């Protein structure tokens, strides 16, 4: 279980401070898929980086299975929005990179990486370089790299955010299948898309901006295993429409508020 308790984060740049998160508290149940969703600037990526141990909260604590996060650890793996593959290494080396970082011998790590590449549909591409692959395929390498270290917790930062709509949809369905057939890993998934969150998640944490905070935690009522059929069901469409509406409202309020702030400053 991931326990985020009263987490705040203040960035200071050029003498000005910016409150990115205020008193954020929530839980992510073990073995569950939880999405963090909200308008740009609500601090969801910052929150994910804190769980990964790349950034520390200004105050508050994050505990994973009762252990406070103080740095990166072998129990977690991160998938990045812009893939972050090593351009000079081939697909196999990239997929094995997380294991290599931990000093796993070449044969073992490459066997593991090969298996994960096969699972994400990249068998046969082991010796291609990232620039030879499409964005969707590059992210498959990113996912294989994260799965290869067999983490307890999978942290995904808008992994499909830079892909085109069709690729994105295919990737969502493949991730859904992959996640359901793996002994479901605790997953935190940052996204902008309500449809994506509703399809993949057990819980959706809706966040609001200025400062970033939790607005609402929603349980996604659809049973697993899910598949593409879910996306056409009226219940799913009503659910996403309702949540999308909520997000839109937030965005409008946020815009109005920032307009007001600008006026006050004038």
């Amino acid at each position, binding site marked *: 279980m991931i326990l985020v308790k009263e987490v705040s984060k203040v960035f200071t740049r050029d003498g000005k401070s910016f409150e990115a998160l205020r008193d954020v508290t929530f839980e992510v149940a073990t073995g569950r898929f939880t999405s963090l969703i909200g308008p740009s600037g609500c601090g969801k990526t910052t929150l994910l980086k804190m769980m990964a141990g790349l950034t520390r909260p200004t105050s508050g604590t994050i505990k994973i299975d009762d252990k406070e996060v103080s740095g990166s650890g072998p129990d977690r793996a991160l998938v990045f929005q812009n893939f972050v593959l090593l351009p000079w290494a081939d697909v196999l080396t990239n997929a094995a990179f997380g294991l290599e970082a*931990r000093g796993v011998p070449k044969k073992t790590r490459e066997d593991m990486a090969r298996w994960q590449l096969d699972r994400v549909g990249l068998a046969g591409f082991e010796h291609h370089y990232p*620039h*030879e692959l499409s964005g969707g395929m590059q992210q498959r390498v990113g996912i294989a790299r994260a799965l290869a270290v067999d983490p307890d917790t999978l942290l995904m930062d808008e992994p499909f955010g830079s892909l085109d709509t069709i690729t994105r949809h295919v990737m969502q369905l493949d991730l859904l299948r992959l996640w359901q057939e793996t002994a479901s890993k605790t997953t935190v998934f940052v996204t902008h898309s309500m449809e994506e969150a509703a399809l993949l998640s057990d819980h959706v944490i809706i966040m609001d901006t200025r400062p970033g905070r939790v607005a609402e935690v929603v349980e996604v009522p659809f049973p697993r295993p899910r598949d593409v059929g879910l996306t056409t069901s009226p219940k799913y469409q009503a659910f996403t429409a309702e949540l999308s509406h909520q997000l839109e409202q937030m965005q409008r309020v946020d815009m109005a508020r920032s307009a007001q702030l600008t006026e006050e400053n004038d």
Partner: protein
Amino acid sequence: MTAVDGRGEPTGSPRLGLQSLLDPRFLVGSAAIVAGFLAWEIYARSLDNNIFFPTFLSMLEALVDLVQDPEFWGAYRLTLIPFVWGLLASIVLGVVIGLVAGLSRTTWKLVSPYVAFLHALPVSVLVPVVVVGLGIDLVARSTVVFLFGFFEVMLSTAAGVAYISNDIRDMARSFGMGPVRFFRRVVLPGAMPAIMAGTRIGTGRAVVGMVVMELLLVSVGVGRLVARYRADFDSPRLYAVVFTLAAFGLLALAVMRRIEVYALRWRRDAQGAQ
């Protein structure tokens, strides 16, 4: 799977083979060179005498004589030994100091004022200083070559390390990669394009350093030949020696380019012809 193999056709540098002899780019290039030599020959023949400006063919003749002359090769040996030492020193020290400076902000702050000062200074100005301080022996001449090449290699290496993206650093950190592995598997390959570019430019400048040293200050090798032929008004040989220096510069750069292409072969498809 919507797999699309986006691999392009490999477009390496043209090799000299039957195929590339017919390549229009190669034909145009060759034609330009031939036309240049032809213009040279015609202009030189139109002069009253060729004391100061030889014909192309007489230069060629002198060149054929020269390469059969052991003294010519002895002169090149004298010139090339400090070139090789100086270039090696500038590459090794440039890469090592560049890596350290790129990795540690403190080191960078310590060395950057000196580097900025010396880099802004035309290196030729330092040649007399080196001669006064070290004389004209092998060490002194190597030092001049070193000074010409070093800053390019070092600055380029440091920049290459500094520009490894924060995302890649975060990624390696998130997988718990230790500093030694990070250096070997991320910093070195990440900075390699910059190291190679710096080394190539540094080599070009080292050639300049070698020539400056020989022609302007300490004529021991090729410089002595140049001085003698100039004094004797032996313009065909003078031009022939200068011609060999140009050829040497081209050869040195071609070798560096080959090494660069090999070291960066992972991106040959991405970059196309380099």
